[in-house]
């Protein structure tokens, strides 16, 4: 499947060609359309998160006399969380490479590592949440904490859903092999997982680092 040699034969050129790029060949194959549709979902998910970020930024100083960002957040924990999620995203990429080569054992190992690192992230986040709630800094304490738990909790819920999806994909590929529809789902999962890491970059910067500036 070499792009260079095929492009002239298809006739998709800029100007001069009668081929508009749509009509004669019909719609794209499912292996393009499905991940593209999923890409649109991921982008709309980012729009959802932008609204949560905007409300957090508007409410971050509305602490109602309660604990502030600098008092609550622990940068070391966040660094470990960030590292776990970044490595998880990287290992997920390795799993995609091995999936393309149809190497079942390696792919399952990398996917397992992806899930394990995701679990580390989620465990630290839940530990942080339970510690905050135990200290009386739950979501009902102030507008700032409500928006904090909505934003970070929404990301955590996405990670949880992603882990369930990951487990399902591992089982499906194990049981059904590298069927095209299954591989498409796996590709969608990797897009979802990378997108979660992108959102986490924004969270650790805006919420945790800027929140704990001296």
């Amino acid at each position: 499947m070499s792009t260079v040699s095929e492009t002239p034969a298809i006739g998709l050129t800029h100007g001069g060609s009668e081929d508009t790029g749509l009509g004669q060949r019909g719609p794209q194959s499912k292996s393009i359309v499905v991940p593209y549709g999923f890409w649109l979902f991921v982008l709309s998910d980012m729009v959802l998160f932008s609204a949560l970020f905007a409300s957090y930024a508007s409410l971050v100083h509305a602490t109602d006399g309660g604990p502030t960002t600098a008092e609550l957040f622990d940068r070391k924990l966040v660094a470990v969380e960030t590292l776990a999620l970044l490595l998880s995203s990287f290992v997920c990429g390795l799993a995609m490479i091995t999936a393309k080569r149809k190497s079942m054992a390696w792919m399952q190992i990398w996917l397992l590592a992806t899930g394990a690192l995701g679990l580390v992230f989620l465990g630290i986040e839940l530990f942080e949440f339970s510690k905050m709630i135990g200290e009386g800094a739950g979501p009902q304490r102030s507008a700032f904490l409500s928006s904090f738990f909505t934003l970070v909790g929404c990301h955590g819920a996405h990670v949880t859903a992603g882990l369930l999806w990951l487990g399902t994909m591992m089982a499906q590929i194990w049981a059904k092999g590298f069927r095209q529809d299954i591989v498409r789902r796996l590709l969608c999962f990797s897009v979802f997982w990378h997108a979660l890491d992108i959102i986490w970059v924004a969270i650790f910067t805006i919420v945790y680092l800027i929140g704990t500036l001296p």
Partner: protein
Amino acid sequence: MTEHEPEALNVAPGEPHDSMVSETISYVVGLGLALLLTAVSFWVASTGVLWGPGVATGLVVLAIAQMGIHLVFFLHISSGPDNTNNVLALAFGVLIVLLVMIGTIFIMSHMDANMGPTPEVMNLQMQH
């Protein structure tokens, strides 16, 4: 894959490259750059040698750079002709995200500044 011809025109987001070497290099480079930017972010946030009021802006710039790294090296969003649809969708997403975030923060901060608590509200708050 049964349909070879249309595949060359578009590529799905996150689709691995055909070459295993270039694919692996892409992920390793992406991981290295992301780790570097994360480390710089944490350093910038904790060091005292930088000009304080500029630190928050610098952190946002670093975060945007790291998101770009993730998009290019992990999701393989590129400027190639087979990627036009993915890039256009991303551009629209970024537009909406910026409108929502900048618009909300701009409007809410002005409302906050312009609508200070009136004496009645102050009294109500005192009673509670």
